[in-house]
């Protein structure tokens, strides 16, 4: 067999490898958020397997961090939501001076909304996380001519978490920053029983 014939014979073999490798690469990257065992939600759930409301995370110290690149100057807390159990309300009052930030994430950590005290209206943050049906039900009950009392966030997934960050400007301020985290109220809003 001539050399050029042998090279031609290899082409389908190499093309098959490239084709399969491309598909496997794309599928594995896209599947990673669904299969990764140690994603943000798994790490947070290990701290508090159960419970509604805000969970304060222990301060970041060497060997006790929950996530990588945590900021040791920030008090962290989280609330987890599951819209199958009703829309989810997140509320806190703002003192106008101290940094507090809420970010809304899907399981894998992707941000779908975020806010800080700077952009709060009327001295408070008041958010309802909803799915399409819950949004419709809320809007059906809205009084006419009035703006919605809260910010309504259409979640891209039924489950996820809200991360609360409060900055401690100095190490001594950590307890008061933790107090601002635990002052956030999160709770599912169950449909009225009738």
């Amino acid at each position, binding site marked *: 067999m001539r050399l050029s014939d042998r090279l031609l014979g290899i082409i389908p073999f190499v093309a098959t490898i490239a084709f399969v*490798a491309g598909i496997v690469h794309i599928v594995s990257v896209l599947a990673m*958020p669904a299969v990764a065992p140690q994603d943000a939600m798994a790490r947070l759930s290990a701290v508090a397997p159960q419970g509604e409301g805000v969970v304060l995370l222990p301060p970041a110290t060497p060997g006790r961090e929950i996530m990588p690149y945590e900021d040791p*100057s920030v008090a962290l807390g989280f609330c987890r939501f599951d819209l199958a159990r009703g829309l989810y309300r997140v509320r806190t009052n703002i003192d106008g001076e101290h*940094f507090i930030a809420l970010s809304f994430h899907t399981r*894998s950590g992707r*941000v779908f909304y*975020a*806010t800080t005290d700077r952009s709060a209206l009327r001295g408070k943050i008041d958010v309802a996380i909803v799915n399409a049906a819950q949004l419709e039900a809320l809007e059906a009950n809205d009084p006419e001519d009035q703006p919605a009392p809260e910010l309504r966030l259409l979640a891209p997934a039924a489950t996820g978490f809200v991360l609360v960050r409060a*900055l401690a400007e100095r190490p001594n301020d950590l307890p008061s920053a933790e107090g601002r985290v635990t002052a956030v109220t999160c709770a599912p809003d169950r449909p009225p029983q009738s």
Partner: protein
Amino acid sequence: MLAFLRGAVAALIGVAVGLVLTFSMLERGFGFGAVRAGPWTAWPRVGASDIDPYARAVLSRTGEIPLAAAQGIAFYARNDESGAALSGSCDYVISGAIPASRFWTLTLTDSNGRLIANSSHRYAFTSAEVLRRADNSFAIAVAPAARPGNWLPSEAGARFVLVLKLYDAVASASPSGLAGATTPRITRGRCG
């Protein structure tokens, strides 16, 4: 039969190559959308809802929760301004301007984002606590052994990462405002 075997071998090699490619891409970090400013790199889109699939995969593997774009921006430095890897074998001085923000924090971690234990329990500086000169400028010394003034301890001989987080950063809303932002210098001093 031979053709079938060749096809099966090609498919198996393809699966292996695809997985190796995925692994090596994810090991390299967030990849796309990097904004460089001096020795610092930020990935503003990682904290936005239009995050790319690679960065999403990286987040779900490491468990890192990014700072959302509306809240601020994180800059990471693995090298000094000459391009050499940051190492606990050398002393460094961080000085100069910080991009406009309400607060900033500077944290030292190992290459996996974990804090490094040290006897003075100092892992970070915030904009409120850093000691400043009369003209409001500051310098932070990064070294394994104690230094006067602002001292951020590193671990002797070990690689490390500096993370500069800007909270309520003025420029974080638009990535174009970040490129060319005046970031602090990381100057290497003595190695030994």
